[in-house]
């Protein structure tokens, strides 16, 4: 194979700190190259330089042997480099078809024409997405599909996928892997960033591991196993800590904190019933669209259940119907969202301010003027308690790595001293080191007697954490497992059959 892209001694410095330092990277034609590393390791910076989003401080990029210095993403796109971002870059108010052809419109456009073209193209990829739907109405998985389709439509020679499978169901993932195989067969080179190590091991030809902005190792995938990757990523062995096969002890159930009975929310949740007990972690596993998130968003007052025959929700034995999330917060419910960047924090505010906002939503402090000292004290307590790693004191949440952002979001909820804590995909887009720390936080809460719910699409995670495992399918809980008799096969079978 010949190299299509080569990075030589590439360096990017942000505010005197090197995000990427002296990296040599070679992408061969028609290969799938997995780029792994903890959050903050420099993966995104590296790929952003390739995609023309940021310019390198030093070093050179060679595309097909020629020097290449893109100034904007469109330069890269013209040169055949497309990037599918972790957070979709689609326009929510436009339809799927409009998004697909955005930037490539003709002078005169027929809506029907682009809809048909989009439909045909999506079908050629076997993506079941209605091109006339507004993107804002799509779920995360479907948005991802549109994003991938757009990159495919641009006939890119190099496609960079940043966490493409994070929001996909296992079936969709398989579909995606087949798609990557097709791309590879067509001679397209793929850079694949993922936190799911199994995926990297499954579909890549070579793996590069970055740590702290430096290249640790590049080798053929066949020479790697999970332990070696983790060792390279974190510089320490976390495999036991992260992937203990199953729980040795199961916490006994305490009082019933939450009872959901025959809940209905449109077509998403259909007669769903479940209980959550104190002192336990209740794991909810299900594929995208199984109604898990919607069920707990009703509990947290984020969305409302159907007005007629919408079922009942009891918190500590009392019937509840929240109109706004603030009511649930006051009643001791915390919902840690799956989409932290949109719903989890105020990105322009500091960590401490974000945490203090969490406190303000729970209690009225009885004064209009707040001293910075008070805000700092609360913020410092929680950043220390949850080991949020920051560069400086007033650093904004958006400047943190994914894992530390997630910890800040958790701190924002825990400051409210909730009795029921709902974690929706708690480690999505979080680096391996932070995963273990977030798991410790979740376990600690259950040990303290709190009722904890963990919604996760990641089977090893939900199996590792849960004292009870509930499987959701098509809008309702269909099966309950004890961690002792749960296997990945059983859970998946319940989720899809």
């Amino acid at each position, binding site marked *: 194979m010949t190299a299509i892209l080569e990075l030589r001694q590439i360096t990017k410095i942000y505010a005197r700190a090197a995000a990427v330092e002296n990296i040599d990277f070679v992408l061969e034609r028609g290969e799938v190259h997995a780029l792994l590393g903890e959050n903050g390791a420099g993966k995104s910076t590296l790929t952003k330089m390739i995609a023309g989003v940021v310019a390198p401080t030093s070093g050179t990029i060679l595309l097909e042997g020629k020097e290449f210095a893109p100034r904007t993403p469109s330069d890269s796109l013209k040169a055949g480099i497309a990037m599918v971002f972790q957070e979709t870059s689609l326009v929510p108010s436009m339809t799927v078809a409009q998004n697909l052809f955005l930037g490539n419109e003709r002078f005169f456009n027929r809506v029907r024409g682009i809809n048909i073209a989009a439909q045909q193209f999506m079908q050629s990829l076997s993506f079941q997405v209605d091109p006339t739907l507004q993107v804002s109405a799509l779920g995360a998985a479907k948005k991802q599909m549109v994003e991938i389709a757009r990159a495919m439509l641009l006939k890119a020679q190099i496609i960079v996928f940043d966490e493409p499978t994070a929001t996909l169901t296992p079936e969709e993932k398989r579909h995606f892997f087949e798609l990557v195989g097709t791309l590879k067969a067509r001679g397209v080179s793929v850079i694949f960033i993922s936190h799911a190590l199994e995926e990297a091991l499954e579909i890549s030809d070579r793996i590069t591991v970055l740590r702290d902005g430096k290249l640790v190792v590049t080798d053929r995938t066949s020479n790697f196993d999970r332990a070696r990757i983790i060792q390279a990523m974190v510089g320490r062995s976390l495999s036991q800590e992260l992937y203990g096969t199953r729980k040795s002890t199961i916490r*006994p*159930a*305490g*009082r*019933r904190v939450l*009872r959901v*009975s*025959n809940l*209905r929310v449109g077509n998403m949740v259909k007669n769903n*019933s*479940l*209980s959550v*007990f104190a002192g336990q972690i209740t794991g909810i596993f299900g594929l995208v669209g199984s109604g898990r998130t919607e069920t707990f968003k009703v509990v947290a007052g984020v969305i409302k*259940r159907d*007005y*007629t*025959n*919408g*079922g*009942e929700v*009891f918190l500590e*034995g009392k*019937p509840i*119907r929240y109109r706004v999330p603030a009511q649930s917060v006051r009643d001791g419910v915390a919902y840690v969202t799956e989409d932290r960047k949109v719903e989890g924090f105020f990105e322009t505010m500091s960590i401490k301010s974000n945490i203090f906002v969490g406190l303000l939503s729970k209690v009225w402090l009885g004064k209009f003027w707040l001293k910075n000292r008070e805000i700092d004290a609360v913020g410092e307590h929680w950043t220390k308690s949850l080991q949020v790693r920051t560069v400086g004191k007033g650093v904004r949440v958006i400047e943190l790595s994914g894992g530390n952002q997630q910890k800040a979001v958790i701190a924002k909820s825990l400051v409210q001293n909730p009795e029921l804590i709902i974690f929706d995909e708690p480690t999505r887009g979080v680096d391996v080191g932070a995963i273990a720390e977030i798991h410790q936080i979740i376990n600690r809460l259950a040990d303290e007697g709190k009722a904890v719910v963990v919604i996760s699409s990641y089977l090893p995670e939900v199996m590792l954490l849960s004292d*009870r495992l*509930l499987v959701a399918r098509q809008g309702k*809980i269909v099966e*309950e497992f*004890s961690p*002792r*008799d749960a296997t990945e096969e059983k859970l998946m079978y319940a989720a899809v059959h």
Partner: protein
Amino acid sequence: MFDALAVLFRRGGSSLSVPILDGALKPNNLLELAPVFAEHADFEDIALGSDGVLHAACGSTIVRFSPAGEPTPVASFDGAVTALAFLSNGGLAVALGTRVVIDAGTAMNRVIDTVDGKRLTAVNALHAQADGSLLICDGSTMRGYPEWSRDLMEKGSSGRLLRADRTGNMVTTLASSLGYAFGALSDGQGRILASESWRHQVSAVKDRRSAPAIAALPGYPARMASSARGGLWLSLFACRTQLVEFVLRESDYRHEMLRTIDPKYWVAPALSSGADFLEPLQGGSVKQMGILKPWAPPRSYGLVVLFNADFIPVLSLHSRTGGRHHGIVAVVERGDDLFVLSKGAGRILRLSLSQIDAEVAQ
């Protein structure tokens, strides 16, 4: 607000829901697969004698069981025995529906048939307290014990919990207006508990007032027994279903049903089912290829739950919809043995607690 308006305009509130069997109540087949200790269609109640031997009320007689389950009659009465208990002094107390006989079978026997000017109507459970007194459950003052189903359909709430002192001369009302009292227990912490079947709860009774101790049960609670682990065993004679809840909400339909339909075909919980094709079914209970799905809405069900001292469910034993050991009305623990009376099947089941623990731990 919406719920209140919906109820006001009789739109049935937000929904028609019943608590589900999850957590410690997750269904299993432990009751269904339990060995049969004794079998007779007329079994009504079970209790341990002062010597630890199991006794049962069977029709109008009290029988004593050998370790192998062979029954020997020890007393007989002029009517069907609806409950029995052994007093702390070794004496036998029995209920005969409308009266209670203390120290029954001896010359010292005393009969209680009226309390606070009201005649006993449906005495269905007795519990002997350590101080020699006796707790008496008078399920309803409106309908006799055999008419419990009618009492439910009439939304009866006239149950009473009574206490007779050791002499039987002084009987006091501990609680009244109970939603069908069907089980009493004085637990290890001295709390007096009463099952309220139609309210799906076990209430703690104190100073003539009752408050829910175990609420939102998924079935109709019946008699209770202490557990050596510090908690209590609760038998539930049937599970709640949306269909029955719906009928209870629709007064016109219910009154018409009471007036025109044979009680055995009412849309109401039953102690056993499946014997007659005229029985009411919910959609999910329709048999396919001659088999009833175990998760079908149950007209009858077998359920026993162990609660700890904090009234938190620890484990449960089930005979699911397609099973036979339904209509559990009494449970007694003796050492490693757990005796369970399935009135629906006319069987006393004997389970090993250590085996239950092993099964549940798997």
